């Protein structure tokens, strides 16, 4: 109660309100631009925060993070391009709904789910930051490895009808993750003498290539066959019946988003994929997933917006930035001489409670600004396809260049686009590739560190209780999915496979 009262006292500070609104607007714009990740959007603001008061500066940066997490879903739904890594799972059903002429409803579901997710995440941040952060503090390398395996176990259900193709796609992602510096010894791997590859390949380049560039290449390969959505949708929020249907998926997103958010290194991408997977598992309409299911948008959007708040738990409580975005936020704290950690609440309580108030204002601002900016996005869908695709190509090339200001990155993105093009032609799912790419470093680095700690004794993964629990959960996920495949193969009528 004391936390709520202290937070409320900052709610009418116009400095905080202005910073929250500006941050969330900037974040939506940055998140909606493919290639501009939430951390880049925040980093671009960092120089402006030098002259601001500490609370306003932190609120501005944190609100940008929230806006960017929501903004990433807009291009995911409209142009099959996740604006942020965490929006990758939204592409699956969001773009399918767009193709069915339901772009307005898809965007409305995304906005409402983002609102629910953010509000729930803020409540979790305020109420549970201490106890949950204690759990995160107990995470060992073995537990992080098991967390990565749990994330990878989702692949079994993202593989569609051919499990082998799903595993191949995942290994491709894991392979790409091995490029760069070795996580334990620091030696170079698969860099072929290129200094640009020393730091590895940014997941956003591969994701933009796999999703956006491959889509442009596929459309170019079908010259004359315009599959454009010709309807002119309006923003549409779910009715009461649909709201009730979405509720369980949103609860799943909230739960997974909270759990993943407090684990440094886990992040919104894993949370959104896991939430998508679990929403499908528990849905009354699992057959609609992948074909334009509203729950397929609600679950990942709720999850990644929940993570946007709960990811602040380890940062505020222990000073551990668990992601690029929270590392930027840590930079914002340090600029003003504030060190996050156990003493933060005592020494700079006004910043913490001001941050909570700012986040609350930013979530309200996200709905308002998201609502105001959506018509512009929907208008874009109805532009003639050659012009729209030409502009999208220019946009993604510009966005990718802006990450490091190097044309080398554009080559990486195009190569990923070619990979995605052939994967789609050969009917390989490329979502497992994205998951393998995102989790590859986490899995390898912690697996090898664990073995170093144990002197190559694999029992260390069993002896660690958290690791054992997570590995058992992963085993259940995989066994369940394989069991379902076997059941479908032997006891269900064969499906008719149609040419696309």
């Amino acid at each position, binding site marked *: 109660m004391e936390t709520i009262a202290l937070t409320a006292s900052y709610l009418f500070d116009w400095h905080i309100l202005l910073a929250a609104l500006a941050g969330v607007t900037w974040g939506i714009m*940055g998140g909606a*631009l493919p290639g*501009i990740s939430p951390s880049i959007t925040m980093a*671009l603001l960092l120089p402006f925060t030098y002259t601001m008061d500490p609370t306003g500066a932190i609120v501005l940066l944190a609100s940008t993070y929230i806006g960017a997490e929501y903004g990433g879903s807009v291009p995911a739904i409209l142009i099959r391009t996740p604006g942020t890594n965490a929006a990758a799972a939204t592409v699956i059903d969001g773009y399918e709904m767009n193709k069915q002429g339901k772009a307005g409803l898809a965007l409305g579901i995304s906005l409402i789910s983002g609102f629910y997710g953010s509000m729930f995440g803020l409540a979790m941040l305020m109420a549970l930051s201490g106890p949950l952060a204690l759990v995160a503090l107990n995470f060992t390398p073995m537990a992080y490895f098991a967390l990565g395996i749990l994330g990878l176990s989702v692949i079994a259900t993202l593989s569609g009808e*051919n499990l*082998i*193709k799903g*595993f*191949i796609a995942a*290994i*491709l992602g*894991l*392979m790409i993750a*091995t490029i760069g510096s070795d996580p*334990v*010894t620091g*030696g170079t*791997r698969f860099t072929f003498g290129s200094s640009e590859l020393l730091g590895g390949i940014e997941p956003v380049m591969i994701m933009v290539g796999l999703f956006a*560039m491959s889509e442009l*290449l596929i*459309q*170019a*390969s*079908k*010259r*004359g066959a315009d599959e454009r959505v010709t309807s002119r949708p309006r923003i549409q929020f779910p009715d009461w019946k649909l709201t009730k249907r979405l509720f369980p998926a949103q609860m799943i997103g909230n739960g997974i988003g909270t759990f993943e958010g407090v684990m440094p290194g886990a992040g919104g991408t894993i949370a959104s994929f896991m939430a998508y997977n679990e929403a499908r598992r528990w849905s009354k309409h699992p057959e609609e997933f992948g074909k334009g299911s509203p729950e397929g948008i609600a679950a990942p959007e709720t999850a990644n917006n929940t993570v946007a708040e709960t990811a602040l738990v380890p940062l505020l409580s222990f000073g551990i930035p668990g992601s690029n975005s929270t590392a930027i936020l840590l930079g914002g704290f340090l600029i003003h001489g504030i060190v996050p950690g156990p003493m933060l609440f005592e020494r700079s309580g006004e910043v913490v409670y001001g941050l909570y108030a700012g986040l609350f204002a930013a979530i309200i601002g996200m709905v308002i600004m998201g609502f105001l900016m959506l018509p512009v996005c929907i208008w874009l869908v109805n532009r*003639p*396809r*050659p*012009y729209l*695709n*030409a*502009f999208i*190509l*220019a*946009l993604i*090339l*510009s966005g990718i*260049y*802006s990450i490091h*200001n190097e*044309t080398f990155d*554009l*080559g990486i993105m*195009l190569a990923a*686009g*070619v990979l995605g*093009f*052939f994967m789609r*032609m*050969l*009917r*390989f799912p490329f979502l497992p590739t994205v998951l393998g790419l995102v989790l590859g470093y986490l899995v*390898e680095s912690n*697996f*090898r560190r664990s*073995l*170093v700690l144990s002197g*190559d004794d694999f029992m260390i993964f069993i002896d660690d209780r958290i690791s054992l629990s997570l590995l058992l959960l992963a085993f259940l996920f995989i066994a369940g999915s394989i069991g379902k495949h076997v059941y479908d193969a032997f006891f269900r009528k064969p499906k008719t496979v149609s*040419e696309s």
Partner: protein
Amino acid sequence: MLTRDFVGGVATIVIGAVYLYFAYQLRVSALDDSMGPGGLPRIYGWLLVGLGSILVIQALVARSLAAPAGAEPVKGEWDGQGRKIAYAAGLLVIAMGYIFIVETVGYLVSVGLLIVTTALYLGAGFSGRLLAIGIGGAVFLYAMFVSLLGVRMPAGMLAPLGL
């Protein structure tokens, strides 16, 4: 008769084999842990080769089960994809052309050329509207990335003009 699974399986084996070749070239140091930098990459490579082989076998078995003895050979599902790949390659060439010229010509001009060329390639007729979209799109992207976000795009030959 080529099926998608057969082509995909062969491609997987080739990628896995090339990756394995380079994985075995990784230098070993006395400071390495027992698994070393090449440990997991080798596992990934062998897994890819193994899974690719399973996919090829699946495709061959499915083909033999689908085609009864003495039946007329049917057209493969992979046949006729060459034209599609060629069309897609055209767009890829345009994108590579942009990468090639952007640092010399400058962002503003090259992004305008990219929009116009891509739209023409994708079927838009040459018109005043196309030119307007090219110029307007270039100015919008320049304003967004350079003026608003402060990204340092290549100025190229426009550097003397401050663009």
